[in-house]
């Protein structure tokens, strides 16, 4: 697990670099090396850890380790979590649940990887809020697909944020000029949270994603032979 450096004065609340930062979780050393490379070659920043526990620690969600920092996390903002399903200790499913239960991190898309092509398992993960489910072994096209729609969602999220910020700016100006002709719609309608979900697909587990989900597990189930 790499150590993270504090960067003074650096605004960590928005992803102002182009790169998606992925937290990869897998107990297998071989798989960790492969997923790390797959992500890097897809222009991502990667933090790879070997357990769900360490993933939670990295996020600052581990109950036993209290985070002293006010912003709650120790390193770069995580844009995507990709985790193996079968891991000793905490499974990928349990990690998924913990992330989705947390108010700070539930918006982060979580992708599950598994060598077992079991419909019940896939369904359970999607119902719990998983963004997608990749059947191992992971291929470059799988990673590219996921990074593509994560990037799109991030960009759309920022555009929405930008629009909200502009509206906030306009309202503030009007308030300063006086309230007489203002059919006051105070900023309370605008969310002050910067972590609002950019994507409707996160809310509904079965909502259709981009057309590239033709390649997603449910189609793959029909194509691959069962093990």
């Amino acid at each position, binding site marked *: 697990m790499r150590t993270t450096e504090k960067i003074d004065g650096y605004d960590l609340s928005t992803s102002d670099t182009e790169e998606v930062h992925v937290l990869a979780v897998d107990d*297998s*050393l*071989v798989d960790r*090396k492969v997923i790390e490379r797959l992500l890097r070659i897809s222009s991502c920043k990667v933090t790879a850890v070997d357990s769900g526990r360490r993933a939670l620690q990295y996020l600052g969600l581990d109950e036993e380790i209290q985070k002293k920092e006010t912003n709650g996390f120790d390193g770069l903002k995580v844009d995507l979590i990709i985790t193996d399903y079968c891991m*000793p200790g905490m499974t990928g499913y349990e990690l998924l649940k913990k992330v989705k239960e947390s108010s700070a991190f539930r918006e982060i898309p979580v992708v599950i990887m598994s*060598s077992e092509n079991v419909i019940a398992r896939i369904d359970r993960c999607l119902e719990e809020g998983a963004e997608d489910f990749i059947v191992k072994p992971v*291929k470059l096209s799988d990673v590219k697909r996921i990074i593509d729609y994560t990037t799109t969602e991030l960009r759309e999220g920022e555009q929405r944020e930008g629009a909200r910020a502009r509206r906030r700016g306009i309202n503030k100006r009007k308030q300063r000029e006086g309230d007489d002709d203002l059919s006051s719609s105070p900023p309370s309608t605008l969310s002050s949270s910067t972590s609002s979900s950019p994507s409707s697909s996160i809310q509904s587990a079965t909502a259709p994603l981009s057309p590239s989900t033709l390649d997603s597990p449910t189609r793959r189930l029909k194509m691959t032979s069962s093990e």
Partner: protein
Amino acid sequence: MELVQIQRRLVDYTKSLFMEGFLDAQFLQLQQLQDDSNPDFVFEVVSLFFEDSEKLLNELTIALDQPNVDFKKIDSHVHQLKGSSSSIGAQRVKNACIAFRNYCDVQNIEGCLTCLQQVKQECYLVKNKFETLFRLEQQIMASGGSVPTIELGF
């Protein structure tokens, strides 16, 4: 031997590994991940696999030798080995692991012992294949040539 001949040798050898089922398409995925910035990627991953598999095979040998065999533990180890062999495209190892797990499921010790031998054998065989592959690659690099890539449509 001339560079072109070694390169031809490498291509033919690699193709034969696919034909004989030692390797599958996932190995080509790994090769795609290798480039000038990561010139030894395949070698590194494959080496990791053999370190990992050696440990797992030892654990399996010990576990099957116990008076009370812990099938859950054995299944877990075989699952791991299946996963990592699948990730590097070592198809025959992977298939041997699948058979192994089936015997685990029904708690058949004899079947498990046979499968363990099978898996060990497949690991040994594919290790030799990889060693030959890497040796040919090194010869090519040493002669100043580049390693030819294989398309899947052969």
